[in-house]
């Protein structure tokens, strides 16, 4: 199928509309749209972009979309993909946000939100579990996890400061490795 900017936008708009309950369902969605229906990229490429999407800051679903968009039609394609994946979320919230101020006073709506709120806590737990499995792979990463957890939970440190701290730790350990490696070569 032709890769016009409009087609790219439309495809990601569709993916954005079907994304419900958190971004973790994006991989199967993209697989069916981009690989099977459109044949724009293959399975390996998609998995690579998905992995890359997790390796840069921001929302994974959007990152993956932008990587694919760029691959299809450079910066303009990336822009079309960005707008496509974002717009459904934007529109649906704008429509709902006005309404919600009114209906949130209704007792049964509050009860439903109470329930959904607890469902969300579970989804957050499941997300933590998934992230733990993928990220805490040895003693060192376990230390990082608890360091950041304690600084955030007990000391209310700003999240951005903690992310910057982790970036410095990452650079520092690689630098140390390089020095050790250099010395062992001498």
């Amino acid at each position, binding site marked *: 199928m032709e890769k016009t900017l409009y087609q790219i936008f439309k495809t990601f708009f569709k993916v954005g509309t079907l994304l*419900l*309950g958190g971004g973790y*369902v994006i991989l199967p969605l993209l697989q069916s749209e981009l690989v099977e229906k459109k044949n724009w990229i293959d399975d390996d490429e998609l998995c690579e972009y998905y992995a*890359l999407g997790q*390796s*840069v*800051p*921001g*929302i*994974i*679903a*959007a*990152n993956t979309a*932008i*990587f694919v968009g*760029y691959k299809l039609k450079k*910066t303009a394609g990336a822009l079309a993909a*960005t707008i496509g994946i*974002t717009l459904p*979320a*934007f529109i*649906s*919230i*704008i429509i709902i*946000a006005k309404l*919600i101020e009114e209906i*949130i006073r209704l007792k*049964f709506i*509050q*009860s439903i*939100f*109470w*329930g*959904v*709120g*607890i*469902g*969300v*806590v*579970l*989804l*957050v737990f499941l*997300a*933590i579990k998934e*992230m733990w499995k*993928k*990220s*805490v792979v040895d003693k060192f990463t376990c230390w990082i*996890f608890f360091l*950041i957890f304690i600084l*955030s939970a007990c000391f*209310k440190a700003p*999240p*951005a400061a903690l*992310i910057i701290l*982790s970036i410095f730790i990452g*650079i520092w*350990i*690689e630098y140390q*490795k390089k020095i050790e490696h250099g010395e062992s070569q001498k």
Partner: protein
Amino acid sequence: MIYLKLFLEFFHIGLFSFGGGYATLPFLYHIADVQKWYTTKELADMIAISSITPGPIGVNVATFAGFKTAGILGSLIATTSVILPSFIIVVIISKVLEQFKHNKYVRSVIYTLKPAGCGLLAAVGVDMFINNINIPGMILLAGLFFASLTEKRDPLFYLGVSALVGLIAGFFNLTG
């Protein structure tokens, strides 16, 4: 200047949140503490609504929080600025993709960032658990948790079940 503040706050969320949809939550809770644009109770409602509306949850919550703070223009600014860092970073990385993939420093930073993102979210999870759940809520959460252990289900399954339980619990005044 509320719009500039919105731009800066949400740009920094897009720039520093790491590890997926819920990774924006630690930042949004931090904003609730510092800027007082919304309460943590309102944020919890926004997150619940964002989970059952189309789109990546991080974008939904940003739009919502922007709307809450400064109307439609606020939501436009919040959404654009939360996505802008992604756009810039991904386009730049796409241009140097091979170097990026094989760079040792990049790998090392990602290796430390992943558990850090997880630690941040865990702090939010504990906070949500301690501050927003009453006894009937704990029972519901425990039930959902055991259901999740038996088999992997769609997120919408948990949200649907918990909405239904909420509706029923409301009739018996258990929702606090």
